[in-house]
């Protein structure tokens, strides 16, 4: 039985009881418990089930490395699957449910898999479910998927109730891990004056040392830690965070810190997680070491635990995981567990030590009355949902001649592996340490930073040393080295002296007993969560999946939510053995961030809901919103697609706007169009390079429509250019084009023609721009009064500065609709007032605002091309019949050279034409025209496609434009467009100008 002791528990506050539920049952724990310690205190040994075989699983560790004790935490909008009970701090009202079973944790139908385990070895699915083929989709895959996943998915419509944020922070030295090594390294580094940040994933400073005990500089460890922490807290150059995990180390000293702010007190104000983006000149990883399990049969039965974890539960939380415990080990440290347990009143049946000689700690244990069995091994742990019996045998055998002992828990220790993740994420290399049988950082091959020098140092037990004295000395040295590398002068001084306990060397034990037979190997777990056994790794090796990376992928070893923190080294040792190779030759798999899983929400940060992405707004945005705007995102801008009146469909609204603009007066918010000022003695020459047509010859006061191509020849933008004065032009771009074309101009000016005297400024947002369009356009402006907007004073394709009504403005007489039209720019701060004035004055002239769809239809009726419709990045001006805009006089402009390549000069290119369905219907968007026959790949030959297609309310029929092979030469011919609706649309090739062919309306 696992239970709470009457005394002990350095982390719990027995005066504060906390109640929580597990699978619906209400249980009690204390402030300071983790969910795991509280469950153990309530004798809830079994906490979940494994992935593949649904085997009963109990907690095996006490921290971040836990593979088994995963629960669904919280409910509704705060439900989170796969949360580790060992790192979940207990709070009042916590609700947890165990995972991966049906109908219940105790009785799980899926556990049948465990009986079938023999038929489901590693990679079994690659060999099965092949025949008969149709079974895969309907039977096999659904069956496999049925058993997928661990935790429950959150409800499909659930919305996270919490908020998240990011924070940018800069440090000279970042220390990851707040054990004695991290604390000491931070202190030494900080003494140099360097800006130091120290982060610790748990809620407590000190790491393992306070549990292990011992003395530092004559003080008990606890005391030492306390003093060191308060010392650091007073230093203004040190920033310290608990509950903040180093999640990943990235190039150029970038580190993610994952701070869990309210997980232990949900519902409190403020964000739940904060993702720190830390830039550090130097990083010290003081992330400690993780104890390895031993591989023996039944090592996955609930009640089998890491020796260090068992010690943690006793010392930190006053919980014993069993009353009759067997300790299995290959090193001296596990004796500390035996002693601790014994002192807490647990019956420690014996220490099974695979070695023949142990150190002084063994003697101490013996003196407490603990039986020590050298050269022994666990042959098998028996029991289903918890440990019942343990069979003991000789280590150097195949597992025969067993002695069975009744026990309810097993503590195991296979030695320690430094936590090298942070060292390795960004390319730090490891070396194999034969004495300790572990990989540790190779200081000669650190991750390299922007300057080509190493930027990560490892310290303490994450660097290899395990003894307190060595850990402190190593940390002190790392702190100094980091400060120095970060450009500070470390203070001289000695590391605090840790007490040394003599220990006998550990001996590598990768399998217990060493030559365990196949039946035992098939029950010796490596990866507890993914159910990978020793036999699976051996099978992979036998089948040629020899690379450690193949073995990982074939067996899924180390791919579970714990990422193999307990299993990887054991697994690769088994692999090395199977390949008759050496561990360092086999090597590790790649360490990838994050260290332990981090919430997707924290990665997203504040960017959700309202601030998911910017919405760019024109000065009249709110007005549009209040007046029925059906919004269309254009880049980050919002533009009105149509203004829908109550009772109207969007389609009706568009048609109304189209007719009204042609017949009366329409207003369009054109503020989003790009406006770039280009000024300087070389501005004309510059624009002549950028536009395909000639801009230098434009007269002051006049406007010209211009085209821009990329150097690759494709159309990229168009717009009206106005010449403002002798050396100033104003270039309009498309809505999406303002920043892009501004960037394009700067690029050419800065990187190619840097000796040309030209300045460019983006003044897009300085102005609100309104297109005043329709037969009554002049009337409304005249009614407002001010500048002369008559045909004579402001002719087509000219502009003037002046005043209209109360507003300073610049009026352009340009038209994208074929109507009498003015585009009027006023300062943005007066945009709304100007719009209001036009709406008011326009009443008697039938004014209506119109949106982008109406704009599109009006221009299509006139056969004007639209960037993004007629063009798609593969279209050149020649395709669109825009030869007139390609200057023949200019020697050079961007795109000119490209147009002479063979494919671009090919007469077979599809060319722009108008399209008119025979029956007046609307051609489907994006339809292709078919020609005769099929090509070599059996595809129908195509001879053209629709680029724009609309219903024209003015013409009361469908109109379209398209790119058609030999289009302009085939006027009147009928081509066929098969629709995806099964219909074949027939359309006649016509002139693309459908409305007012002679352009009389715009020129009045």
């Amino acid at each position, binding site marked *: 039985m696992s239970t709470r002791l009457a005394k002990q528990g350095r982390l719990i506050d027995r005066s504060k009881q906390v109640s929580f539920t597990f699978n619906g049952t209400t249980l009690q724990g204390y402030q300071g418990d983790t969910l795991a310690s509280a469950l153990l205190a309530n004798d809830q040994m079994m906490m979940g089930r494994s992935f593949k075989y649904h085997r009963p699983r109990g907690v095996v560790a006490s921290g971040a490395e836990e593979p088994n004790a995963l629960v669904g935490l919280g409910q509704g909008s705060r*439900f989170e699957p796969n949360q580790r009970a060992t790192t979940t701090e207990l709070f009042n009202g916590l609700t947890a449910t165990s995972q991966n079973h049906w109908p219940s944790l105790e009785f799980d139908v899926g556990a049948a898999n465990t009986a079938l385990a023999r038929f489901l070895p590693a990679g079994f699915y690659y060999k099965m479910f092949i025949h008969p083929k149709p079974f*895969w989709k309907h039977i096999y895959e659904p069956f496999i998927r049925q058993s997928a996943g661990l935790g429950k998915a*959150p409800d499909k419509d659930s919305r996270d109730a919490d908020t998240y944020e990011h924070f940018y922070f800069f440090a000279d030295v970042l220390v990851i891990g707040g054990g004695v090594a991290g604390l000491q390294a931070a202190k030494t580094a900080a003494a140099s004056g360097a800006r130091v940040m120290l982060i610790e994933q748990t809620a407590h400073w000190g790491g393992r040392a306070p549990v292990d005990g011992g003395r530092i500089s004559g003080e008990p460890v606890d005391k030492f830690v306390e003093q060191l922490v308060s010392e650091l807290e007073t230093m203004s150059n040190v920033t310290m965070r608990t509950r903040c995990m180093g999640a990943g180390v990235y190039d150029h000293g970038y580190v993610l810190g994952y701070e869990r702010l309210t997980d232990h007190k949900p519902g409190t104000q403020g964000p739940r997680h904060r993702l720190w983006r830390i830039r550090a000149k130097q990083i010290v990883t003081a992330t400690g070491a993780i104890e390895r399990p031993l591989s023996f049969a039944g090592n996955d039965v609930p009640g089998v635990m890491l020796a260090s974890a068992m010690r943690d539960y006793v010392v930190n939380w006053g919980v014993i995981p069993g009353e009759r415990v067997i300790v299995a080990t290959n090193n001296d440290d596990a004796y500390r567990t035996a002693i601790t347990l014994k002192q807490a009143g647990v019956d420690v049946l014996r220490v099974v030590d695979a070695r023949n000689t142990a150190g002084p700690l063994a003697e101490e244990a013996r003196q407490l009355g603990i039986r020590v069995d050298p050269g022994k091994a666990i042959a098998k742990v028996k029991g289903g949902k918890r440990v019942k019996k343990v069979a003991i045998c000789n280590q150097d055998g195949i597992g025969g001649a067993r002695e069975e002992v009744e026990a309810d828990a097993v503590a195991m220790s296979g030695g320690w592996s430094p936590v090298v993740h942070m060292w390795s994420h960004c390319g730090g290399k490891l070396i194999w340490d034969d004495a300790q049988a572990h990989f540790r950082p190779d200081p000669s091959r650190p991750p390299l930073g922007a300057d080509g020098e190493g930027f990560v140092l490892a310290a303490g037990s994450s660097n290899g040393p395990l003894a307190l004295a060595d850990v402190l000395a190593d940390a002190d040295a790392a702190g100094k080295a980091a400060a120095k590398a970060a450009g500070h002068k470390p203070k001289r001084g000695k590391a605090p002296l840790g007490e040394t306990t003599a220990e006998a060397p550990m001996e590598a034990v990768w399998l217990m007993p060493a030559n365990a037979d196949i039946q035992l190997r098939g029950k010796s777990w490596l990866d507890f969560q993914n159910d990978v056994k020793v036999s699976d790794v051996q099978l992979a090796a036998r*089948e040629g999946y020899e690379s450690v990376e193949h073995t990982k992928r074939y067996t899924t070893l180390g791919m579970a939510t714990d990422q193999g923190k307990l299993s990887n080294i054991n697994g690769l040792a088994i692999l090395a053995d199977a390949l008759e190779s050496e561990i360092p030759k086999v090597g590790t798999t790649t360490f990838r961030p994050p260290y332990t899983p981090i919430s*997707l929400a924290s990665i997203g940060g504040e960017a959700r809901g309202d601030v998911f992405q910017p919405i760019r707004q024109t000065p009249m945005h709110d007005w549009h919103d209040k007046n029925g705007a059906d919004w269309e*995102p254009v880049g980050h801008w919002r533009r009105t697609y149509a203004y829908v009146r109550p009772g109207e469909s969007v389609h009706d609204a568009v048609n109304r706007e189209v007719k009204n603009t042609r017949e009366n007066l329409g207003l369009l918010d054109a503020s989003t169009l790009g406006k770039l000022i280009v000024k300087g003695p070389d501005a004309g020459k510059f624009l002549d390079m950028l536009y395909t047509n000639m801009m230098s010859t434009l007269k002051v006061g006049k406007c010209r429509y211009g085209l821009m191509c990329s150097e690759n020849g494709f159309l990229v933008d168009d717009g009206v250019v106005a010449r403002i004065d002798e050396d100033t032009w104003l270039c309009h771009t498309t809505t999406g084009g303002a920043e892009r074309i501004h960037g394009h101009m700067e690029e050419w000016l800065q990187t190619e023609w840097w000796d040309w005297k030209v300045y460019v400024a983006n003044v897009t947002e300085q102005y609100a721009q309104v297109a005043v369009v329709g037969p009554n356009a002049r009337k409304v402006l005249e009614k407002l009064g001010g500048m002369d907007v008559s045909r004579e004073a402001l002719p087509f394709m000219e502009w003037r500065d002046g005043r209209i009504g109360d507003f300073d403005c610049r009026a352009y007489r340009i038209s994208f609709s074929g109507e009498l039209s003015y585009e009027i720019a006023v300062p943005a701060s007066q945009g709304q007032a100007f719009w209001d004035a036009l709406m008011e004055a326009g009443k008697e002239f039938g004014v209506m605002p119109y949106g982008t769809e109406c704009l599109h239809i009006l221009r299509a009726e006139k056969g004007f091309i639209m960037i993004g419709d007629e063009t798609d990045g593969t279209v050149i001006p020649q395709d669109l019949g825009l030869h007139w805009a390609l200057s023949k006089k200019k020697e050079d402009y961007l795109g000119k050279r490209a147009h002479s390549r063979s494919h671009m000069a090919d007469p077979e290119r599809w060319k722009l034409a108008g399209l008119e369905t025979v029956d007046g219907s609307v051609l489907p968007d994006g339809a292709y025209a078919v020609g005769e026959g099929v090509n070599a790949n059996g595809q129908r030959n195509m001879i053209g496609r629709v680029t724009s297609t609309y219903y024209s309310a003015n013409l009361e029929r469908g109109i379209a434009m398209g790119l058609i092979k030999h289009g302009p030469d085939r006027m009147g011919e009928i081509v066929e467009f098969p629709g*995806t609706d099964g219909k074949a649309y027939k359309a006649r090739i016509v002139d693309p100008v459908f409305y007012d062919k002679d352009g009389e309306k715009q020129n009045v």
Partner: protein
Amino acid sequence: MKHYSAFAVAREALRYHTGWERAWRSPEPKKRYDVIIVGAGGHGLATAYYLGKNYGIQNVAVIEKGWLGGGNTGRNTTIIRSNYLQDPSAAIYEKARGLYEDLSQDLNYNVMFSPRGVMMLAQTQHEIRGYQRTAHANALQGVQTEWITPERVKELVPIINIDGPRYPVLGALWQERGGTARHDAVAWGYARACSAMGMDIIQQCEVTGVRQDNGRVVGIDTTRGAIDCDKLGIVVAGHSGQLAEMAGFHLPLEAIALQALVSEPIKPCMDVVVMANTVHGYMSQSDKGEMVIGGGTDGFNNYTQRGSFHHIEETVRALIETFPMISRLKMLRQWGGIVDMTGDRSPILSKTPLGNCFINCGWGTGGFKAIPGSGWGMAQLMATGHSPLTEAFTLDRFKEGRFIDESVAAGVAH
């Protein structure tokens, strides 16, 4: 080669699986081969496989500097679809998709091709037009796709947030026969089948030089010695530039990092693959339960197999907006691959300036889905000198201005 089947597994179970043979042999390189393929990724292995299967050319070696399948084939988000816009792309990807349908049976290795359907969301008017255009083209190309309504989207993907708030789902291009496959299994299955034909797959063997005589390749230098060959196929994705350099020509491509990530596994909640281009992210759920997520590329040349974290961030926030319920799931692991990007983002399957040397590269962010089709076409090209599948993807298209640009239909390339 032992036949794989449920029966075989059951039989082996009785002897604790001690009777399985190696999936592929691990031979010493011979002095000479008819054909050497450099790169044991999916494309290289498939090329070798179809050389043997379709043309009887079996004296073939596949040379791999690391472990087979360890390049992009082993690190991609496994999306398979063929709803491409341009004819040449639609042809080769549809060929591949068709071959995927029977690949498990063909190779006697379950690659778990899962035709669960691929959906590309339209979230702007522009995307609607782009995807409707693709749907029209696909109908003529013999690729089965359809344009579906937002309601149907929601039906297929209950966890999606179709009404915005920022980018409401306006519809989607749906390819019901698209899906995913188990990436590693594709490489392993081909490798096993190649090995069974007697081909040599030589791992841990890096090609360091291309030996030539009179404008023709005569062999290669490797870290395990020189090997002669009659024909050489270079199929090394991100490292194509290096190999081309060794062969004395230059390729119009750049090596760039692309990243992906997986969440912790959860019970099945999404049965189809969803790609959202406007917000830029895509997601599917593997048969094991992780949400498999991919996004955008870095903008700079990089060989580290790591990328910049801010791309992960952009992708994740896009997907939380699209599938709000994933917000409290956790990222389990992230990684990167080095993709080879050409000027028009389409692949190169081509003869080279060296008469008997062929190149297959430039698959960039989207070549997993193409593996069988590419192998098929490449084998045909190498064996006969011509393949309709590869014809448009030549090296000289850039000079002529004859691009195969898929981005035009608002398409993402994965």
